[in-house]
């Protein structure tokens, strides 16, 4: 029993990218402590609730981007799909479509973008940066065209249930948006860690040739990752629509980069094959805490952007430095031990 438990922990720690997750978790705790000291309201029940609701969308798109990054690709279309989802659902609802029908249509359309990404990258071997740059521009165009280049009017009373479900309502003391993020994380974390599809996603990102020769279907695996990404973007678009009660054409602007940031801070490698979704949770949380905490501290948006940019670089740098430092310290110890040995001799 004891041995089994030991093995379990060993496995947890040696798990891919766990090292950085531990490092940044400490960072997150320190950040929270600092903001808590600066402003005690930071830890008030109301603010924590708000904070979690701020983190939720970043976490959701982060999960999508993490999937794609682990396959060794990138999805630049995330932000535009968020916008497209927001505009499409809002337009349908203002035209009198049943909100849930509208949600269904929106999800299907967004998944179509993910499918196109998968086809372009895995079937036609386009560089993922170029392929998703194309679909990014297209999806933004779709967001603009659906309501003739205007933001929509209010989606109205008929959509009250929709708005409560995605944002305003709360269950067991937590906002629904937070629940949605949690459920999405739970499902996709399970798929990534415990299923065949998940294992294939890591294999494709680690060595695409070896994966192919091991019988992994590269096309379907890559496409699945892009579908997850566009599904997550779609949900965030719906959350934004529910939040503001209308469709805005520039919703989700540059979210794809926020998603990269959340993933990378959490230890997902942009080279593929490495990273876990727990890391993405921490990455998204650091993002949210910084936004929220700096806002409380009265820092203007410009300063927030600069700080977050620095954090992205530092968090990855920290991981590299910590790893090198360990090596250097070992080397130092080794050398001094050798010297002592030589002196004794």
């Amino acid at each position, binding site marked *: 029993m004891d041995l089994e438990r030991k093995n379990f922990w*060993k*496995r947890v720690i*040696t*798990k*891919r990218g766990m090292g950085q997750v531990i490092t940044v978790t400490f960072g997150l705790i320190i950040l929270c402590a600092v903001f808590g000291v600066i402003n005690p309201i930071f830890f008030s029940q109301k603010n924590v609730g708000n904070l979690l609701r701020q983190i939720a969308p970043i976490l959701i798109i982060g999960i999508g981007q993490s999937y794609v990054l682990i396959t060794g690709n990138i999805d630049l279309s995330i932000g535009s799909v968020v916008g497209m989802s927001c505009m499409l659902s809002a337009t349908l609802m203002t035209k009198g479509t049943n909100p849930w029908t509208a949600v269904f249509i929106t999800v299907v359309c967004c998944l179509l973008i993910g499918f196109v990404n998968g086809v372009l990258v895995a079937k036609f071997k386009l560089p993922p940066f170029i392929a998703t740059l194309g679909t990014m521009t297209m999806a933004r165009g779709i967001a603009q065209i659906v309501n003739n280049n205007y933001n929509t009017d209010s989606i109205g009373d008929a959509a009250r249930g929709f708005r409560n479900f995605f944002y305003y309502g709360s269950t067991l003391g937590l906002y629904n948006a937070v629940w949605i993020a949690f459920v999405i994380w739970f499902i996709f974390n399970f798929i990534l860690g*415990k*299923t*065949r*599809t*998940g*294992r*294939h996603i*890591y*294999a494709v*990102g*680690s*060595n695409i*040739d*070896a*994966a*192919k*020769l*091991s*019988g*992994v*279907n590269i096309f379907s695996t890559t496409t699945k990752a892009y579908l997850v990404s566009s599904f997550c973007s779609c949900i965030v678009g719906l959350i934004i629509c529910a939040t503001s009660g209308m469709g805005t054409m520039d919703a989700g602007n540059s979210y794809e980069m926020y998603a990269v940031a959340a993933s990378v801070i959490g230890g997902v490698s942009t080279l*593929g*094959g*490495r990273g876990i979704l727990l890391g993405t949770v921490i990455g998204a949380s650091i993002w949210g805490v910084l936004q929220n905490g700096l806002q409380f501290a009265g820092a203007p948006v410009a300063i927030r952007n600069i700080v977050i940019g620095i954090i992205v670089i530092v968090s990855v740098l920290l991981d590299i430095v910590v790893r090198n430092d360990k*090596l250097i310290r*070992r*080397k130092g110890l*080794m*050398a001094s031990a*050798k*010297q002592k040995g*030589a002196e004794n001799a």
Partner: protein
Amino acid sequence: MSEYVVEAKHVCKSFRGIKALDDVYFNLKSGEVMALLGENGAGKSTLVKILSGVYTRDAGEIYYYGKQVGHIDPQVAQELGVAIIHQELNLCPHLTVAENIFLGRELTSSGLLSDKEMNRQTAELLEKMDLDLRPDTIVGDLSVSKQQMVEIAKAISTNARILIMDEPTSALTSKEIDFLFATINKLRNEGCGIIYISHRLEELKHIADRVTIMRDGKYILTSEFSDISMDEIIANMVGREIKEKFPRIELNRGKKIFEVKNLNAGRMVRDINLELYEGEIVGIAGLVGSGRTETTRAIFGADPKESGEIILDGKKVTINNPRDAINAGIVLVPEDRKKDGLCTRLSISENISLPNLDFLCDKLGILSSKKEERLVNKAVEELQIKLADVQADAASLSGGNQQKIVVAKWLARNSRVVMFDEPTRGIDVAVKVEIYNIMNDLKRQGIGVLFVSSELPEILGISDRIIVMCDGRITAELDRNEATQDIILKYATMFENKIQSTKEA
């Protein structure tokens, strides 16, 4: 004044607490070829990396030309005239031959690159080396052996006096090896000191003047090559005597398992017909680029086929992708383990289970970690893979053990036909024998074994039947009793006589 151009004493080096080099001694004279021998993980590569400044030593003294040198980094090594030709090629594939040779020390006039001058000097150098290459060819378009020659040319162009070659022949054909040896001999006669690392012991008699043997990070001995027998060398490398270099088991040929009819796939696979029977190992011999790898890949469905039938146990099977082949029971252990065999950033356990997820997962595709653990432990035990932890990255293993992982992942499932492509490239004698034993086990179990190899002794030593390929065609099928190196080479170079046919036409 010392007679040695390089002398190393008491050199130690550890990685993460594991001693890679322990009190190692080494020397090299000018105008000689010193063969540095040892199994995988014996510390040969670590030693030459220390000599060339890639790694810093933990302790020990190093003398160049009789003078003690303290800190060595790659720049210092270059100034000392040390050049290393790595196992993996270090060229920029998108640049030309001349650009690669002058990389980092480009010639300029008034701040602009003088391409003309660099190309001219490169052409001179290539001519001096008798290389049939143009300075403005893109390196990525060259064959591996030509790239290696470019690498050697690059080393020579820096006026290197001490040349280190780490497994230079592992990717070369026998003709190219002859050429390499001629180049090495020429350099030796010009007074270069050459450190030569190789696993192919049979090569040594052509070039080695002296040998240094290492084992488990320790220095074992240095000897004149003429004073030591091959058996002594092997015994000192392995630490024990290897009785049979090519263990063979005799079995009666059983029923036909597998048949390929009229397989065509591009220029390198033309009208291939072959059969496999129970209780035999079939070797495919040929030069590099003769279409052997392409044939196995086409059978396996990794590359598209144009036409042809594959018949397994009397039934025709359709194979459009590797998954089809795996499901039918045909598997391929690929040639290049780093490129095609392993996901180096995944754990050992994940690598072994990757092709076997179909029976490790339930209907919903959820992975059973218990089944996975059982499968991995069984594989590790059966193949005697030496490792600390199955959760460690596959990259952390030595070459021989990595190769065993690549083999293990395919043996974990019940297959009917196992194809090996160069299964023993770059691994040491002891592991080679283990791989042969695995092949023999499969043969005993009645599984069809097809293996591709460029090493003729291995082909002759292990196979029951030999298929020779040349230029995408099968040129001969030989029984092992009638096959010799000469006969195989004759068929391996039976190119279609294109010149004559154009004359007639």
